[in-house]
């Protein structure tokens, strides 16, 4: 198991008795807005800690793991993509800098942009990108880090349907090829049905369904 949650409670937002998220699989989290999906991802990234209960990552209690090291293995993409100042290239490289990893060549960066379906030169000023493009840039930044676990919070909310499918397809392909764990919050059941190995439905802060697809 990648993650195991036991009796987890966070404020009035989330209350999960038990949840297991398998390793090297694609897990989709679905549920209405405000149901606690983002909070769940933030807990897994240890950006917040549960008020009660325990979360285990690969069998170890998350609170016993160095939070910085954990986040370098379990990387999260927020729903509103973070764009830092500078060019597209700067934005890709800053992820490597944060994670204290070596820089890579421009060809590798361009390849990553292609994978994220972002057809822009590396020199483009990042703040001039549209919402959907920023989202794909942020996604490319995460893929470049090649983390063990990728947490995506509605990674395609600002994209049209066609682009959305292509983007998710490439991320899923990446995860499968590198046998990584992919956990993503998606807004449509059809995407979950098409790509997920496991679908978790959250309602009112609790898990109401957990199904293998």
């Amino acid at each position, binding site marked *: 198991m990648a993650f195991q949650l036991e009796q987890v409670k966070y404020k009035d937002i989330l209350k999960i008795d038990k949840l297991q998220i398998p390793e090297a699989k694609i897990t989709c989290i679905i549920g209405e807005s405000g149901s606690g999906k983002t909070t769940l991802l933030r807990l897994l990234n240890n*950006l917040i*800690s549960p008020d009660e209960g325990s979360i285990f990552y690969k069998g170890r209690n998350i609170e016993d793991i160095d939070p910085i090291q954990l986040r370098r293995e379990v990387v999260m993409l*927020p729903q509103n*993509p*973070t764009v*830092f100042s500078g060019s597209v290239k700067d934005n890709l490289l800053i992820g490597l800098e*944060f994670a*204290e990893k070596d820089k890579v060549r421009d060809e590798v960066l361009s390849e990553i942009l292609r994978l994220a379906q972002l057809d822009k030169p590396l020199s483009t000023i990042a703040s001039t990108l549209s919402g959907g493009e920023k989202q794909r840039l942020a996604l490319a930044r995460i893929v470049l880090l090649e983390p063990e676990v990728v947490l995506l919070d509605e990674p395609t909310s600002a994209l049209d349907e066609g682009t959305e499918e292509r983007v998710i397809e490439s991320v899923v392909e990446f995860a499968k090829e590198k046998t990584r764990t992919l956990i993503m919050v998606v807004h449509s059941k059809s995407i979950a049905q098409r790509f997920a190995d496991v679908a978790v439905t959250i309602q009112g802060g609790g898990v109401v369904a957990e199904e293998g697809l």
Partner: protein
Amino acid sequence: MMMGVVDIGFFNLLAGYVLILVVLVILRQRNIKKETELLIAVVRMSIQLVLVGYILDYILGSQRMWMTLAAVAIMEVFAVQNIYQRIKIDMTPRFRSIVACSMAFGTIITMIFFFFVLLSVKPWYSPRYVIPLSGMLIGNSMTGITLGAERLLRGFHDKKELIEGALMLGATPERASREIINESFTAAILPTINSMVGMGIVFLPGMMSGQILSGVPAVTAIKYQMAIMFAILASVAFTVFILVVWGSKTFFNDRAQLVLYS
């Protein structure tokens, strides 16, 4: 040749109040309802200055070390209180104590260097030097800390998403807040740097003017002015640096999570 300054006689000074009367007349004629404020300000200024004048005369005459140190300590306390009042954003008790510590550490380090190495006055606690010059260091650092702390507090609130975005990618809290720290530091020391640029051309600094008035040769006054400017810049930079580096740590808990209050 040194010349003593011409003293202002009591009745001459009273004549100064005529100038205030002129301003009052203007306010009255234009129906600007600020007369009370002006009167309170004039009365407060007069009483405060007269009191300080007597106190300073006493301290300067006594040449006692503890009195000089007490005067500096009182200035520090007032400066910190002033910072708390001027910052309009909520501060945690921890942040408030860092404001006080950075104020004390930054100014004291600079004072030690300034009085022992740069000026090397004897005795080192000579109140004639220590009180006015420390006052300048403390006053400027107070303005610097106010600017720096406001920028820092606002930065953490306004750029919450950027900081968390960096943390999510595995950045350390220090790295995630680096830009905000540097921006706050720059904003706080920029006014001091700018004031150096115009000095001597756009305006004559107060201390230098004062020394010239009291008969000190202009070249000596300039040397003092340069020395105090170096010390002011250093003092502002040290205090603000300590504040932004330590202060930024109060926004993270031991799990490297961003904790915002208010």
